């Protein structure tokens, strides 16, 4: 995982450092309103803070920000690491010493996931803060969710267990105030499998109207229904799920982290598997799933249009095409999969989505994105 995180950090550096246009200045009060900048003067520039974030930062998250002269942000990252480690260990040890008791495993596994999320993202955030030199530009790259957005793309899935490989992906998204409805589908070009999903998200907290918010954090509740069918393997699965999905703006921890965010989700799904075997009547099976997702993301700048972002994530799902990671040692199957998702808009209306995931299967592909133009923004008023 570390190698993957480091590579992701390098990608971020390449993206953020390539900002061609002059860096727009944030609104005077923007960063201060969210989190006052460290009072310490800026520290050494160049590779030292990044090196500190990568190497000693592996153990002491925030080391990069200490080297950068941002002690308060560094302390917050260190605290985040500590909380993450504590949650991870307490959840993990609960699972181990209770023999994964049916009564405790769900909260313990959730705590472990949350802990892993805080631990890993504090490390990434430290690196990000030392390589990102145009965090203020992120403020100008925010874009309200489009009223309409459509996606049409291709995914290649390599799974030795199934014959399918090539998929057409479609999605439509409609934003109505705080509510977003997103029907989507994965369709195997061989016609042997398909996945239909209807997702509705309601924003419980966070911005839905301000085109230039000071804080991009939000809390959504998601209700989704999924149906997958596997004709050659004679089964299909229907799933209902409920989850709480959050995004935390890392600018709250320090101004150097502007443009970066954490995503954390937790939920539960109830599914039913139906078997379609000729000449046999096979009762359906009920399945329960613990949902969890955590990610570290950045707002993309450079040549991209507003609304572009990248996210490196872990997803605990075991029921989708990528499912849980297979390993050669003892722990195979328990953990979910990892993914890298990016949305890059070339213009106000047109963009591309990149998608790579690794679990029981490998998935890679891209989609074209089309979205309705942003609503006209009210002119900024000068106090």
């Amino acid at each position: 995982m570390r190698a993957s995180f480091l590579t992701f950090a390098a990608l971020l550096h390449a993206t953020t450092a390539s900002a061609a246009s002059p860096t727009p200045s944030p609104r005077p009060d923007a960063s201060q309103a969210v989190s006052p900048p460290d009072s310490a003067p800026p520290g050494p520039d160049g590779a030292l803070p990044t090196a500190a974030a990568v190497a000693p930062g592996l153990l002491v998250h925030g080391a990069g920000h200490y080297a950068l002269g941002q002690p308060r942000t560094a302390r917050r990252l260190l605290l985040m690491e500590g909380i993450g480690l504590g949650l991870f260990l307490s959840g993990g040890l609960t699972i181990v010493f209770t023999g994964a008791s049916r009564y405790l495993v769900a909260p313990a596994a959730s705590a472990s996931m949350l802990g892993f999320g805080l631990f890993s993202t504090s490390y990434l955030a430290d690196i990000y803060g030392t390589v990102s030199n145009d965090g203020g530009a992120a403020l100008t790259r925010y874009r309200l969710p489009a009223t309409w957005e459509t996606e049409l793309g291709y995914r290649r899935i390599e799974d030795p267990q199934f014959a399918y490989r090539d998929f057409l992906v479609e999605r439509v998204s409609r934003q109505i105030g705080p509510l977003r409805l997103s029907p989507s589908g994965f369709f195997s070009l061989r016609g042997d499998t398909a996945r239909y999903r209807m997702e509705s998200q309601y924003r419980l907290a966070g911005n839905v109207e301000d085109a230039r918010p000071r804080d991009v954090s939000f809390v959504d509740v998601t209700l989704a229904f999924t149906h997958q069918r596997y004709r050659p393997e004679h089964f299909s699965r229907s799933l209902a799920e409920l989850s709480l999905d959050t995004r935390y703006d890392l600018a709250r921890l320090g101004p150097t982290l502007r443009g970066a965010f954490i995503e954390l989700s937790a939920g539960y799904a109830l599914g039913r598997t139906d078997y379609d075997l000729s000449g046999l009547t096979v009762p359906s099976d009920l399945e329960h799933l613990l949902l969890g997702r955590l990610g570290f993301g950045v707002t993309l700048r450079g040549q991209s249009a507003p609304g572009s972002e990248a996210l490196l994530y872990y997803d605990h799902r075991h029921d989708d095409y990528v499912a849980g990671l297979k390993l050669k040692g003892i722990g195979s199957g328990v953990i979910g999969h990892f993914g890298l998702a990016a949305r890059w808009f070339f213009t106000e209306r047109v963009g591309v989505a990149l998608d790579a995931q690794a679990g029981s299967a490998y998935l890679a592909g891209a989609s074209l994105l089309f979205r309705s133009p942003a609503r006209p923004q009210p002119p900024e008023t000068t106090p």
Partner: protein
Amino acid sequence: MKPRPLLGTAVFFVLSCLRPTEERVELDLQVGRAEQGALSVKVDDGLAAVRALTDDSLVLWGSAPGFALELTASSARELRLEVQNCLPEAELGVLNGAAELTPLADTTLPTRKSWTVTLPAGSSRLALAAPDSESTEPFQFALLSDVQEAIDRVGDIYARMNEQPSVRFVLGAGDLTSNGRRDQLERFQSELERLNLPYFSTLGNHELGTQPDLFHEYFGRGNFHFRFHGVAFTLLDDASASIDPTVYDWLDDWLEQSRRDVHVVAMHIPPVDPIGVRNGSMGSRNEADKLLARLAEGRVDLTLYGHVHSYYSFDNAGIPAFISGGGGAIPERFDRIGRHFMVFTMDAKTGVTARDLVKVD
């Protein structure tokens, strides 16, 4: 795409592997085959592991109540053949060739038998089986898995098993050891000397802890199939929370062969954990449902699992299923089960006629 993102994607993808079981399937195919100087041995279907082979001795570890083997000698010779982990009443016979057998009484262990085999030059086929192996009379077998770090106390369980007069053998659903180290496998084997029954087992994820190929060296294949008293048994290696695609082809054949028979399928990790949020199951629900659909289509009568250190009785794809991880490894708390094993009564005509949960603590 720029070089760095491309490199990132490559690094990202090599973190996982799609076929962690591939090497073990190759090992399965090597089980029961050996060649040493003037002598070679080939056990049909890999149902016994070759533990030692010299010019004048052969030691096998049985994975099934009966099996056939072919011995090829470049010149006539006398051979001491020892079979460990066999039924106490097992007998060795000559299927073809001019080999001559003389039973030896040089061991006190009921599951260990030896013979002097006078081999002519060329190939000879022998078969090990209990006299009643082709009978279709009801019989009992036990299920025990997940011993791991409780190896010091496993003797209690074996003592209780020895009190079950009708049990013919023990089926194992893996996790015999903590990490699959050689010393742990040796210890497990030495503890088995307290058991008066053979123990036929596949491997669990804990056997993959240090050196995944050692299990095959000691106890044979992870994927195998045998028959006893008209009942088919299939043991599958899903210790990596997945079954290798090659094994699905083998499974299809075994299911087809046994479609009209009572069929028991055992593996370590349950395809779907009845406590789904725990996910003590296969890594992919899709693969799990694919497997269950095949087992249902193959008219499997009973599925047996370990991995979860408790006892669960449920149905999957309409097939009765039991999780029995009662070997003593860190138990699931608050379940009021503790160490246990199961005893099944099987009838080739009617299927599972009885099953008992035997609590040891």
